């Protein structure tokens, strides 16, 4: 059922409930549910009272965790937070019964309660429950997460992931990170360095200094490594970086002038990339550790931007063999390719969704840039954004949100990261310290 229909149904049920006042029995209610596929017209109202501090030292953290949970949910555009100033009930204990009528009166359809305790070893434990206010019942079991105090944001994201999953029936994306290029300096002397942060911009860490130009980092499917292009040697070359110790090594690519546009295979063991030789760029794959190099395209045109399908059997890429850059799909072992982009304009940076159902891309047409999605056969193209310069989509781990680079026009133009739902709704800027480009989203941690 589409989201729209579900919500309409939810609204009808709400009207019935209101008309019948207290007569709407919980058993007759539809369970609390959002279907994401067609975008949310009316976000679902929720309340997150401050989590209970089960000992004195947990007080500040209990408040902060509740705020992160609320920000995660509200940021999706699927949910709307009801401010605490509207609350009638005060939650005084994690185990005390929920006063459903008080939450219903302020139209909170979902209620999230939680508690935080700090152990003698400094570890924190976060417990939470989700309630379907209109059905007057708990949604799923209560859960708890334990970890170091320094990982409190991760635990908050895990709570929000669980709430999101229970209400949408889909996997979530809050406990994830983004590797990107942090930019500074004027347009004609740009400094770039690799950086990593939580998906919401928190916990920023730099992975390289700005002594060498770096481009287009890509997360490994295991979330612990990054492939990127660096001019460290004076020439663009692909590097592999271990996030844990920030150790990096050049990929031993086959002889050629420059290597770039890397992406991991779904198992993380191989890399598919572009190699330039004598001015011509083609696509290769090889083992991440070196060896096993295989040339996949052999044409005088530009072949770049390769991306594996999640099952590893196919590769989508850009080629200008027709005269302009267009999207093609071939076997992951090379061979014949079929063109899938058919609209007016130029298509670049294709990336297969983690669900396997869609391909996101950058489209340039009539002086504008767009982020778009199409089915893997090229049908049902939909443009999600339009601006002076949008490029480089990356998928959220659940395949529902796309992050990309938006660069503003003119001499003072600067790059920033944005997110948009695959429905085209809920376009918003991602908070970063300074200018940022080329995001790559990690898997769910």
């Amino acid at each position, binding site marked *: 059922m589409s989201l729209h229909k579900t919500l309409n149904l939810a609204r009808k049920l709400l009207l019935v409930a209101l008309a019948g006042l207290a007569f709407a029995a919980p058993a007759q209610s539809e369970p609390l549910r959002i279907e994401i596929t067609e975008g949310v017209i009316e976000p679902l109202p929720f309340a997150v009272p401050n989590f209970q501090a089960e000992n004195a030292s947990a007080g500040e953290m209990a408040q902060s965790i509740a705020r992160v949970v609320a920000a995660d949910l509200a940021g999706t555009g699927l949910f709307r937070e009801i401010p605490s100033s509207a609350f009638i009930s005060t939650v005084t204990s994690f185990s005390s019964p929920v006063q459903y009528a008080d939450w219903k009166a302020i139209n909170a359809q979902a209620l999230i309660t939680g508690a935080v305790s700090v152990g003698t070893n400094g570890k924190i434990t976060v417990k939470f429950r989700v309630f379907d206010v209109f059905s007057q019942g708990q949604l799923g079991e209560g859960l708890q997460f334990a970890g170091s105090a320094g990982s409190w944001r991760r635990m908050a994201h895990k709570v929000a992931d669980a709430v999101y999953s229970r209400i949408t029936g889909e996997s979530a994306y809050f406990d994830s990170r983004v590797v990107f290029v942090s930019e500074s300096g004027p347009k*004609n002397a740009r400094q770039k360095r690799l950086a990593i942060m939580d998906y919401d911009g928190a916990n920023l860490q730099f992975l390289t200094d700005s002594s060498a130009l770096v481009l287009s980092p890509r997360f490994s499917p295991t979330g612990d490594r990054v492939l990127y292009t660096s001019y460290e040697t004076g020439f663009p070359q692909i590097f592999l970086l271990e996030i844990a110790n920030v150790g990096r090594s050049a990929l031993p690519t086959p002889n050629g002038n420059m290597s770039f546009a890397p992406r991991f295979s779904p198992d993380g063991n191989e890399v598919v990339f572009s190699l330039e030789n004598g001015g011509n760029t083609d696509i290769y794959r090889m083992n991440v550790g070196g060896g096993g190099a295989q040339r996949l395209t052999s044409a005088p045109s530009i072949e*770049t931007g390769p991306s594996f399908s999640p099952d590893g059997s196919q590769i989508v890429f850009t080629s200008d063999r027709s005269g302009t850059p267009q999207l093609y799909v071939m076997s992951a072992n090379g061979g014949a390719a079929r063109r899938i982009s058919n609209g007016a304009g130029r298509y670049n940076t294709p990336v297969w969704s983690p669900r396997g159902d869609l391909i996101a891309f950058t489209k340039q047409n009539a002086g504008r840039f767009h982020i778009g999605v199409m089915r893997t056969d090229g049908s049902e193209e939909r443009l999600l954004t339009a601006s002076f310069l949008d490029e480089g989509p990356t998928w959220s781990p659940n395949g529902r949100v796309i992050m990309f680079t938006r660069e503003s026009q003119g001499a003072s133009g600067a790059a920033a990261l944005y997110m948009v739902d695959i429905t085209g709704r809920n376009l918003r800027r991602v908070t970063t310290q300074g200018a940022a480009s080329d995001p790559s989203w990690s898997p769910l941690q």
Partner: protein
Amino acid sequence: MKQITKVAFLVLALGASACTNPGRFDNMGGAGAGGAIVPGSAADPSSPVYFQQTVGDRVLFEVDQSTLGADARDLLVKQAAWLMENPDFTAIIEGHADEQGTREYNLALGARRASAVLNYLIDRGVAPNRLRTVSYGKERPIEICSDEACYSQNRRAVTVISAGGLTS
């Protein structure tokens, strides 16, 4: 080693310029008080600065093209002649694109442009082992406005002269 080569070369260059280009740099900087040409200055026809400023170090391209136009070919004939006359120098040819394109495609496009220049210089007799290409795509614009006046200057291939050997 590099330093020694450079010093030896500059002495040779000074001698050559004194013989073959007498009085040619009257209006240019670099002439010493007694009219002697300062080695390595813009007045020294064997200097990278002279190559950059007087021979001309860059050719421009049409949107999305890597074809060399008539003006570009004329300039590259002069670049090739200079490189032939100054055999101790090597060159890296940088290919660039304007900002109207995605990062990775523009890297490939810049490589095409640099390669077009490299191939032309080789055709004119420059030894291939003295030349190398690199593409910066849209990463290093020299003009920063967002219209054709700037874009046309950014779609370029620049021949950068250096005294050292090429590493590969």
